[in-house]
């Protein structure tokens, strides 16, 4: 009996405590407005203009009790000074509590990214519990608010899906670099290399791209038809947390190929046929191993030797040269490509040395290996040393297959 009484007392006590407990961090799932992306612009009055892209959960749902005629997203922009306080300010307009749970993209306008102050707002993100380090950073040519408004995906019903797919796909095809908040913070903190961000725009730019191949930025790819205006192509360059330039799609790819910190995805490229310049050869290149980078330090001037093994599959042969059949032609082709690659890469490396005065390849990590302790490494000062370095790149190409059907008929015989 006594035991029972004790038990009842305990249960009552626990219930009391528990009922006092409820509801501090409790948030009903449907009472949140899920922000999919935030846009950051330079403000006119306040220092920052923030844009929320809020997903409508009911849109596109075919479940019972879930479907609706409401629009897929809600977009709101206003001025503020930091990233955290607008969470409550937005509730003047938005009926639900703003939640960053689905926030996977931070869209920043070029203009803001070029500011010295930009890094301050980026560190705001490390304070907020729900902003994660794997959030993608996207830099736009126009204002982020305009970008968000203009971006109208045609087939992806939900905004979060659109961003997820287009960025993942962009990274997989090496059109854009893998640019997350984590990398931004890490590279900025290490203070040795350049950070590459995703470059995107909705503004179309009329350029003559006939001979440019992949040397284009987002907005320069001519498209017609009935589709989204947005393009994700190329990258932005950050030094010490501040944007200092842009890279074309091709340069982005080169920097990925030369990067030691990550493996680059297989890429599809095209280049003029060495024998008949009017035709282009399409090829798929796969990086088998990350490049072998060797750093040699001789008092004052350091030398970097890069050895890049590439596996190449030739996909088209418009010149009908039949490379698959002819060993000699293949050797020639190989030489030609290696040369072309080395030249392009050297050109790009020289540009980084002269224009950016730092490298986007993560080569500083190789330099770290050369030192036994951090103070020594710091004394060496990678970033200062890089522009004077003597860089030497050698590319080694191995051919894979030459398409599903490797041999072609003799064109003359077909046409007689």
């Amino acid at each position, binding site marked *: 009996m006594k035991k029972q009484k004790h038990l009842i007392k305990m249960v009552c006590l626990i219930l009391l*405590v528990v009922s*006092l*407990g409820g509801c*501090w*961090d409790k948030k009903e799932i449907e009472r949140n407005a899920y922000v999919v992306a935030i846009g950051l612009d330079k403000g006119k009055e306040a220092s920052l203009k923030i844009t929320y892209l809020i997903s409508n959960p009911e849109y596109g749902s075919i479940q019972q009790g879930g479907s609706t005629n409401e629009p897929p997203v809600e977009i709101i922009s206003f001025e503020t000074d930091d990233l955290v306080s607008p969470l409550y300010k937005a509730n003047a307009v938005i009926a639900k509590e703003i939640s960053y749970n689905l926030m*996977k993209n931070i869209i920043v306008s070029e203009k803001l990214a070029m500011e010295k102050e930009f890094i301050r707002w980026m560190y705001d993100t*490390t304070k907020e*519990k729900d902003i*994660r*380090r*794997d959030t993608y950073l996207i830099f736009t040519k126009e204002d982020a608010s305009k970008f968000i408004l203009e971006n109208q995906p045609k087939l992806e019903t939900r905004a979060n899906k659109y961003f997820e797919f287009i960025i993942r796909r962009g990274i997989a095809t090496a059109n854009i670099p893998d640019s997350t908040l*984590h990398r931004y*913070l*890490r590279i900025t*903190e*290490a*203070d040795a290399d350049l950070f590459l961000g995703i470059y995107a725009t909705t503004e179309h730019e009329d350029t003559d791209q006939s001979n440019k191949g992949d040397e284009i930025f987002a907005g320069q790819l001519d498209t017609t038809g009935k589709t989204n205006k947005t393009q994700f192509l190329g990258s932005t360059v950050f030094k010490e947390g501040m944007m200092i330039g842009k890279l074309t799609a091709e340069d982005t790819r080169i920097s990925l190929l030369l990067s*030691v*910190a990550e493996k680059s995805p297989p890429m599809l490229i095209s280049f003029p046929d060495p024998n008949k310049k009017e035709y282009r050869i399409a090829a798929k290149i796969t990086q088998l191993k990350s490049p072998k980078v060797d750093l040699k330090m001789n008092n004052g001037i350091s030398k970097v030797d890069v050895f890049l093994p590439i596996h190449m599959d030739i996909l088209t042969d418009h010149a009908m040269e039949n490379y698959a059949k002819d060993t000699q032609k293949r050797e020639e082709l190989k030489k030609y490509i290696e040369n072309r690659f080395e030249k392009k890469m050297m050109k790009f490396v020289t540009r980084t040395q002269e224009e950016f005065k730092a490298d986007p390849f*993560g080569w500083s*990590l*190789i330099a*770290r*290996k050369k*030192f*036994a*302790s*951090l*103070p*020594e*490494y710091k004394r060496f000062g990678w970033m200062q040393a890089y522009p004077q370095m003597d860089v030497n790149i050698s590319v080694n190409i191995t051919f894979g297959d030459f398409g599903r059907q490797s041999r072609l008929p003799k064109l003359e015989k077909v046409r007689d």
Partner: protein
Amino acid sequence: MEDSKGKIGIKEFIAIIILTIGTKLTDDTTVILYKQMENAAWMSPFVICAFSILPIFLLIKVMNIYENKNLADVINQLFGRFFGFFTVMILWFLLFSALTIDSAVYTDIISTMYFEKTPVIMIYGLLMLVSAFGAKKGIEHIGSVAWSVIFWIKLSLLAALILTFMQGEILFLFPIFGNGAWEVVKESSLRTSLNAEFLYLGLIFPYLKNKKDYKKGTWIALAIITTELSFSLAAFIMLFDHKGIQLMDFPFHETIRYIEIGFLENIETFFFPFWLIASFIRFAFYLYLTAILFGSLFSIRNFEHLLPIIATLVVFLGIIPENPTFTIFKLRESLLFITTPIFIILPFLLWAAAKLKGEFKNEKAKASD
């Protein structure tokens, strides 16, 4: 045939040690190591291990003389009543501070990383309530619970580490000696008290089923803990690099927030319960030890009844510091420095006292009989 009367076997013993000391890699202990050693912090567990081998060895030697005495009794026996009381008092004070500070850190982790708006006292209260409940069940049951969950806890940790290694970059570990090889040795040695719990394990010596298990279990656990801690420290660096990690408050929790498995992007909540269970068991054990020490200080037989009081005291002391993340971090660091000499010297003193008093000879005489 086989009987268990409040005693634990070697499995439970190892499980308890691993959970109490191994869980340290999830709190801000790692930051304390990163602060001075930067990216060479992963070496420090080995240095610390090397420094703690001798004290632990001596302690085991001394403890093995006595069959059914715990550390406090041994100290009283060897140092005499006055100095014994004094030493046990210091030990108790250190343990109690460690308990208070550590539990405050864990509360802080829960409240900053997972439950931002919940009042700290509720989180703290629940943490201590469950731990005190566990401690009240006694060492046998703490051991049983530890053993029955350790596999899953370590599996989750292993999964987290593998994912981290996969997403990490090995080059971040260079320059290999961080701030210099000498620095690593020096700074690690100052933090040897990371393993100070091994000293307190002498308190549960009488509760072991087989006295040989004490020796065997301690060494096995030391080896496991050292590797585990070292691997985790390396994994965190490989993910965040040495600069980023110094800015963080709780690297383990930042890590599980960052890693992802396939379509599941935010998996920290999968690891959270496992970590919590480990913490509950850890503090249950701490509370139990504190109660034993307090009991033997003032010769209180039924020390289990002290547990609710100690737990309540811990909660109210633990919530005092304002801005816990930093205040407690400072306190914790100083506590580590203070404990280190005691951890290293005390076993030596015990051994010397035993030698002088000729206790080892008695032991041998007994053995030859």
